């Protein structure tokens, strides 16, 4: 049989940009996991070609998606089609995890009144926290300010990650109605974590969510990570309603929707120290 007669065989010249122009190899009747023979000849084995990317080349499609992703907090009202959410979760399923333990489970909420209920609960939690700890919302010199500040300084020492000035400002903004938790997104995906996961399951949740978020960006959707969703773990009522049971807990949430405007400009970001060991030397780059 000639090469062109095989329907599963990819066209011959497709090697320049192997990252994403590579065709999906198997058709409907190829057994899952088996690559079409044409591809094996061309790419695998000892003679497989190395993709050479020249210096200074443009970003490829995957890099573009990563560079243009922003945390979107203003959504259009229009609901996201269900098949796109399924598509995002599908790539989430393929995230790497420690020991391939896959410590995730997904809860998708698409009913506006339910999302509003979750919002109300988290806002209430933020309000309590803000009143109890954020001395910046009280007048300097007042007794309230003094007492709260003393308390906050102690908690700050005990829990320096949670009481970083940025989330504290956010908690107060939420309490005052200037900021939201789920940003009125039409869809909320809760990432549940199996607390028995290997090593540090939080990291695996992060990687899984990153797959989801980048897939969303590539589909023209906006997303935002919602750490304050963890407040829901404290509510028996919400855990029951959402089906969050031990050994699972809500680790993160991702809001999904169509972004307002077109937030696609590239932006500047911090550069970070890179220590580079090569040729017996250590160099520092940024």
């Amino acid at each position: 049989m000639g090469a062109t007669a095989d329907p599963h065989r990819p066209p011959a010249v497709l090697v320049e940009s192997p990252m994403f122009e590579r065709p999906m190899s198997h058709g409907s009747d190829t057994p899952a996991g088996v690559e079409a023979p044409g591809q094996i000849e061309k790419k695998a084995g000892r003679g497989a070609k190395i993709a050479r990317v020249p210096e200074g080349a443009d970003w490829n499609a995957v890099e573009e998606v990563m560079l243009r992703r922003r945390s979107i907090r203003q959504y259009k009202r229009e609901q996201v089609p269900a098949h796109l959410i399924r598509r995002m979760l599908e790539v989430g399923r393929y995230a790497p995890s420690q020991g391939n333990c896959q410590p995730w489970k997904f809860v998708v909420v698409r009913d506006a009144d339910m999302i509003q209920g979750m919002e109300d609960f988290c806002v209430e939690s933020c309000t309590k926290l803000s009143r109890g700890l954020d001395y910046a919302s009280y007048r300097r010199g007042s007794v309230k300010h003094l007492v709260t500040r003393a308390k906050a300084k102690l908690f700050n020492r005990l829990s320096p990650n949670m009481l970083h000035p940025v989330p504290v400002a956010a908690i107060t903004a939420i309490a005052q109605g200037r900021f939201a938790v789920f940003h009125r997104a039409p869809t909320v995906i809760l990432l549940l974590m199996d607390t028995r996961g290997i090593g540090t399951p939080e990291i695996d949740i992060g990687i899984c969510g990153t797959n989801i978020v980048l897939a969303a960006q590539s589909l023209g959707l906006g997303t935002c990570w919602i750490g304050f969703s963890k407040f829901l773990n404290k509510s028996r009522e919400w855990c029951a309603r959402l089906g969050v049971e031990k050994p699972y807990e809500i680790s993160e949430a991702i809001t999904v929707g169509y972004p307002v405007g077109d937030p696609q400009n590239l932006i500047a970001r911090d550069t970070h120290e890179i220590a580079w060991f090569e040729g017996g030397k250590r160099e520092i780059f940024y």
Partner: protein
Amino acid sequence: MAVLSRAERRHFPDWDDPTQCLFHRVAVDEALCDGCKLCVVVCPANVLELYGEKGERKARVKESFRGCASCNNCRAICESGAIAATRAYDFVGYYRQLGRGEFSMPRKF
């Protein structure tokens, strides 16, 4: 110096002291700003506002210093390229930023 001193490790900055919490550094080019308000709408920290006469409104940072996380969503959505966060936030003491270089656009290598 990319290490925290002992004293710094013990000092938690005052959330309400602008000299200890160095939040916003957002620059607006008024010549380019057309007052479309998109940045004000998307700013997660709610630190931007419009000011000026009707028809000639421009964006600016509110007086309140608290909140801006240099996320640059304002830059991402601005069609005329008039606004941008120009530096990361920083704090004194425990939360001082370490090992950071200059702000930079994505570079090609």
